[in-house]
């Protein structure tokens, strides 16, 4: 657990007085459920972390990479650059956990978007029914790609439009005008 960091910043790796503790990497770990609702991590079958929490390091800009596993003290114990680097079972468990944690309602139609004093009120139809939510300015809308829009409302709820060009003309017009 005291290796030097190995990703990027080669100049920084030399002479560091308090080298950061480097987390385990994907090929060193196995993730599984034991007991059923607890995510456990084992390192090279030598030691175990009985409860770990997978989180996205950059859920908006890099939703498919850079997963950090935090222990019960919220300290990082493993860092996964790409889920493909994990074994099949570990990948399945982490994906399930991430889906649960980063539950995103998919927006099917935008009824209205109204701006007032830097706050935007959205009225939408999602895959979980009609929703009204509020976002602060443009801060919490993020274009993951040219067409994929990720939104986080003031309460931390997440919404997603996979491809806004596939929505109805009214919704497209509202998004193009307001986002």
């Amino acid at each position, binding site marked *: 657990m005291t290796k030097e*960091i190995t*990703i*990027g*910043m080669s*100049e*920084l790796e*030399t*002479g*560091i*007085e*308090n*080298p*950061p503790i*480097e987390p385990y990497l994907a090929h060193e770990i196995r993730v599984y459920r034991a007991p059923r609702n607890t995510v456990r991590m084992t390192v090279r079958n030598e030691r175990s972390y009985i409860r770990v929490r997978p*989180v*996205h*390091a*950059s*859920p*908006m*800009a*890099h939703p498919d990479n*850079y997963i*950090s596993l*935090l222990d019960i003290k*919220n*300290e*990082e114990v493993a*860092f996964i*650059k790409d889920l493909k680097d994990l074994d099949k079972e570990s990948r399945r468990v982490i994906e399930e956990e991430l889906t649960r944690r980063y539950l995103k309602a998919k927006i099917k139609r935008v009824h209205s978007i109204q701006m007032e004093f830097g706050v935007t009120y959205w009225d939408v139809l999602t895959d979980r029914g009609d929703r009204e939510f509020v976002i602060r300015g443009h*801060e*919490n809308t*993020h274009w993951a790609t040219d067409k994929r829009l990720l939104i*986080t409302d003031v309460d*931390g709820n997440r919404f997603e439009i996979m491809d806004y060009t596939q929505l109805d003309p009214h919704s497209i017009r509202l998004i193009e005008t307001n986002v």
Partner: protein
Amino acid sequence: MFPFKTRVVLMVAISLLYTLAELGPPYIMKHIIDDVLVNTGEGITEDILMLLYLLVGAFAVVRLMSYVLEIFGQRLSMWLGGRVTVAIREELYENLSRLEMKFYNKRKIGALISRVSNDTESMMNFLVDGVPYLVTNMLLLIGILVLLFLTSWKLTLLVLIPIPLMVVGGWFFWIRLIRAYRTKYYRWSKLIGLASEMLYSVRLVKTFVQEKREMHRFSSDNEGVFSGDYESEKEVALFFGTVRMLTSSGLILVWYFGGAEIIDETLSLGALMMFISYLWMLYEPLQWFGELNSWSSRAMSGAEKVFEVIDTPAETEDLATPITITRMKGEVKFQNAFFGYNVGEFVLKEIDLHVKPGEMIGLVGKSGSGKTTMANLLCRFYDLDEGILSIDDVPIREIRLEDLRRQIGVVLQESFFFSGTIAENIRYSTPDATIEQVIAASRTANAHDFICGKPDGYDTQIGENGKGLSGGEKQRVSIARAILHNPRILILDEATSSVDSHTEKLIQEAIGNLVKGRTTFAIAHRLSTLRRADRLVVLDDGKIVETGTHTELMKMKGHFFRMVETQRGSNAVMAVGGGKNDSTRHSNGHVS
């Protein structure tokens, strides 16, 4: 204007065609009256009917042309005015970012924001609406005058009587109005400055329960804006009333003398009607020229302020042939250096200091002793008044500014953030850094774990003041930014904010990682950081009074010794009084 040459030529051509089209209808009307309507007394012939159809057809075509040309002309002028304003606004913004810090010391940020928004806006209004109308109406004026003289030179001379009065009056009005607008805009920018100041420090206002006082200041300035507005609009009302009165007197003369000429059969009815139509068209732009005065006054007063900024030279500019240093060693020398923010008031005097590459210098001294000024000079926010400041034996003035600033990193006492994500803020000085480099820097700064613990991780939005981050988190994000910047010379204006002992340890570790191998100037408030320094430089009243290691200075029992004793005393008081962060202060306050 050069990049838009083709469009400018096109706009002039459209204005010319539009003028011709506008001059057409009264002329056609004259022929309808004189050649068709007046002739009906002798019976309606096919020739007369045909002439009527032709003239009405021509009328319709001319109106249609005028309609189309007006739309194209307006669109084109909007485009041109908009583009020119965008270019000016960009130049203004660019110059604002290049100006020396002294420029900002003397100005309110709100007033500068007003220059970027309001003043460029009034310039745009003039360019979009004013200039095209000026061109079109000048052409129209010339065309109308020619036609009026051709119709009746006597009547034309009569209607021109009020014009010299309007021109002279307009000139005086313009001078008065520009003064009124200057006052008005000064008051507006003062009000905006006051409002933005209040909003930026709303926490301070609330803490000291100063809402009423702030409201009173606002009301007083708001009243000032009203009186400024009222004074200028009073001038406008007086001028336009007078202009209208003068134009109607011209019309009275035309009806009187024109009517007499019809009775004498020296002028036809159609010609008089045409004359009156042209007269309306003549007075309309003349009235408008009056308005142009107020329009241009507003724009001129805006332009004056915009170009004041654009024309202010960036005082710390590169020399004609600056020296390029791609990789500094980090050797810094102050030689007999003097500097003052105001002429004749030196805040740094006789500074002689030689710092070896990789050395860590702790700058110590009372508030106002000149520590931050030394850091500002190293960043070349200001130039020395006397003496030499050199890096790697090259005077700092001769080093290419971009090279210098690229290799100097600053971690400020107050962390500054831009509205954006944590990742964007960390990679602010290194925009091309990958997310992996950002993560690596954050790990070294002990920031990665808390960032990952946030629901949006590195994508967490933070406001201008690092909204949503605690004091300790802000410091570590700042350190991560400095690590990613990877400077050769580091200025560490260390934060004084109290943090818990665990965070303190994390910050100290992060600082340790950051300073290693870099020439560092630490404006230290924590003695724990000072102990890390290779040498301490004690400043008092702008002069270096002591230099040496921590142990040497303690043995000297001079300024530093007294400061340590004072701090030790205040820590003891805190301990007895049960200060909020006792443990932190005790651990920081240790002096061997």
